[in-house]
């Protein structure tokens, strides 16, 4: 993975010093909270319900065992013994103090980590495919471009105070695992007919209050020209994005108002003046960065058959192990290797995506023993060991079980994506975690979960949509009505190549109704499905009506919900 040179290291160290001074000025009162707020947000520091929350970047999801040990140390020393992996390849600490933050950042800087631009109205941490460089369906390894753009966007002066936050996602595989179209800018990398690396640019996607899928505004942009093109794009947004209304300030509103064609035309007009400038990337820069993304030293192995793999387990373990192979192990580009997803979604415990200090340390050891010391964070809030020898999968499975990260529920109903919600977040209208827990407890039967197959269920505690509810096959959104917590259900959302925004089915429910509502929706699917038909396929064939009827059949508080109206 990428290794800092002295420029990267110097910049991160100097950022720590700058923030230390900003914090000191806040603490001595010379910097008012209102004016400190954007400064701390641009360094990942939120003020939450109970304490400060620090969001640390895991650029494009890639990290190593040493970094994970530092994450564990921070959880132990400065927090309450755990960290929360987020939907945008960050890790969050929920219980830090303002006074400690500069020291935490200094600890992070020692292992080439930072919290730069993990929040605020700037270019955020760039996300990508958690399986970059190893996925069987990859056209182009996106990591060099991710790293080049990480550097380009870091402390970019012109775009430090955009109208609103700005998120990039970058994909280079056949299957999209980045929710590319739900980003302010989505960059799809491919090779053109001459074999040159080019990018298709999608703009104006986003979730939040007005979920919109991004529009293709530029095709086959040579990779070298990304800085000048993105400068032009961001300049148009910085100058003309709305600043009068927080809820209409994202680029998606500008793109929608102008129309994608007109937006693209304006970007092109700006770009004409700068496309030949020296902002663009050079081959030397590519070489400097790309040399870090070479393949690890794989052994020459032959691919093991499924049967051979299962035979690694004892008779009593075979069923459980094969379930794990089916759900949590993914194909690899190199024969004899596989990628393993460690599930951070144990049933009915704390928060999806949480890992304790002890788990983090143990997982760091697993990375060293089984996967060249490297890890990835997925946007579904799980962790990946990307380069595991197939012959050692059974051994790894047994180790992972000890750490309670081997539940074979990846992609199943209980692999819930959820934001921290009202238990922690001061933006939230409602709690997310108890809902996730209640659903996991209701569907705690693995046989049944396997029978249901692929279903995504995503929960957001407010319309900011950190829990990605819009793209869940089943989405749950916390809403506030007259000071009470209600939950709105959407159906039909989808991530990946067939990305779709879910539709609201009707009035909201009370929290205690949600497990029954989900059960009724699932029962409808089970009753109506044809053989091997997934939930989302059945939904697309049948439409919303049978699911909606089922969802409301026992809604005891339906009338009250209806009278309270829809979420604003």
């Amino acid at each position, binding site marked *: 993975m990428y290794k800092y040179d002295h420029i990267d290291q110097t*910049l991160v160290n100097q950022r720590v010093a700058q923030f230390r001074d900003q914090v000191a000025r806040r603490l001595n009162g010379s910097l008012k909270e209102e004016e400190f707020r954007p400064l701390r947000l641009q360094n990942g520091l939120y003020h939450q319900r109970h304490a400060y929350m620090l969001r640390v970047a895991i650029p494009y999801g890639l990290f190593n065992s040493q970094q994970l040990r530092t994450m564990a140390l921070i959880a132990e020393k400065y927090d309450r013994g755990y960290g929360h992996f987020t939907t945008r390849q960050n890790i969050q600490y929920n219980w830090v103090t303002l006074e400690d933050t500069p020291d935490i950042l200094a600890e992070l800087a020692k292992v080439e980590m930072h919290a730069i631009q993990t929040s605020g109205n700037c270019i955020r941490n760039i996300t990508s495919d958690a399986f970059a460089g190893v996925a069987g369906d990859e056209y182009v390894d996106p990591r060099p471009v991710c790293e080049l753009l990480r550097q380009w*966007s870091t402390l970019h002066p012109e775009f430090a105070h955009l109208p609103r936050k700005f998120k990039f996602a970058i994909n280079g595989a056949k299957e999209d695992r980045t929710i590319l179209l739900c980003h302010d800018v989505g960059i799809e990398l491919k090779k053109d007919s001459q074999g040159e690396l080019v990018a298709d640019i999608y703009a104006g996607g986003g979730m939040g209050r007005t979920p919109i899928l991004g529009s293709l505004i530029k095709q086959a942009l040579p990779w070298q020209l990304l800085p000048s093109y993105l400068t032009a794009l961001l300049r148009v947004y910085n100058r003309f994005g709305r600043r009068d209304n927080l809820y209409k300030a994202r680029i998606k509103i500008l793109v929608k108002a102008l129309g994608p064609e007109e937006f693209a035309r304006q970007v092109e007009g700006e770009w004409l003046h700068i496309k030949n400038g020296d*902002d663009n990337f050079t081959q030397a820069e590519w070489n400097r960065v790309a040399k870090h993304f070479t393949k690890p030293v794989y052994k020459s192995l032959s691919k093991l058959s499924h049967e051979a793999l299962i035979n690694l387990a004892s008779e009593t373990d075979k069923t459980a192990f094969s379930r794990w192979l089916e759900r949590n192990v993914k194909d690899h580009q190199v024969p004899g290797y596989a990628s393993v997803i460690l599930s951070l979604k144990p049933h009915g415990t704390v928060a999806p995506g949480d890992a304790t200090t002890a788990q983090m340390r143990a997982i760091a050891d697993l990375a060293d023993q089984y996967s060249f010391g490297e890890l990835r964070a997925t946007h579904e809030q799980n962790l990946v060991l990307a380069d595991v020898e197939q012959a050692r999968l059974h051994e790894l499975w047994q180790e992972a079980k000890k750490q309670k990260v081997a539940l074979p529920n990846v992609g199943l109903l209980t692999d819930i994506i959820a934001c921290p919600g009202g238990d922690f977040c001061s933006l939230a209208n409602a709690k997310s975690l108890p809902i996730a827990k209640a659903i996991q407890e209701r569907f705690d039967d693995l046989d049944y979960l396997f029978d249901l197959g692929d279903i995504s269920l995503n929960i957001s505690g407010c319309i900011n949509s950190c829990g990605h509810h819009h793209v869940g096959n089943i989405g749950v959104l916390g809403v506030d009505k007259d000071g009470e917590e209600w939950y709105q259900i959407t159906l039909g959302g989808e991530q990946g190549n067939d990305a779709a925004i879910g539709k609201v089915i009707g009035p909201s429910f009370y929290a205690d109704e949600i497990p029954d509502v989900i059960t009724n929706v699932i029962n409808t699917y089970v009753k109506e499905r044809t053989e091997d038909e997934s939930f989302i396929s059945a939904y697309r064939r049948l439409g919303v009506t049978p699911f909606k009827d089922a969802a409301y059949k026992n809604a005891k508080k339906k009338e009250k919900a209806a009278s309270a109206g829809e979420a604003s």
Partner: protein
Amino acid sequence: MSLTTNIIAAHDQVLHFPKDGKPSLAPNEWLIWSGDQDKSEDEGGLPDLEHGAHKVLVPFTWWLSQINSHHHEADIQAKAKNGQIGVWFAADDDILKHADVIEAGKKVWSLVAAHFPIFRDGRSFSTTALLRNRFAWQGEIRAIGDVLIDQLLQGARVGFDSFALRPDQNLDVALKQFDLYTVTTQNSWRDKRSTVSA
């Protein structure tokens, strides 16, 4: 005289940070005029430059209205050439729509400024980047309005070389902002991105 109501700011000192130079404080000579016109005033409400302060920054929109009216154009052009009038751009002024006026202004304005209605509004960063890159403006560009210590570095990099800070800002702390970083990972008006020597 309308100085009391229509002058946005009259700083005692401004922070200068020339390209390839060092940051320093210097006495300020420029009033910033709001452009609000009293009916009793001549010359479209322009502050009295003979008897009051000698130099004034006028809103770009006011400049546009004057050169379009032709009534006072010769006079304000003369004052500008004489170094008494510069213009300031509001955050929502679309300078690219008036490229001809900016090009002509390059010959007469001794100072231009870009305004921050609130510190977290970054539009003037792009305005200034365009003035430097597109219009090749070589003269001074001043940051005015809600200019705080923690914007200085970004401002200096996009192309500002003087800063009229909000009066409550500590100028000693402000002067220390410019050497916080010795490296950069993207090009700006001041520096090219740092490179690793082979």
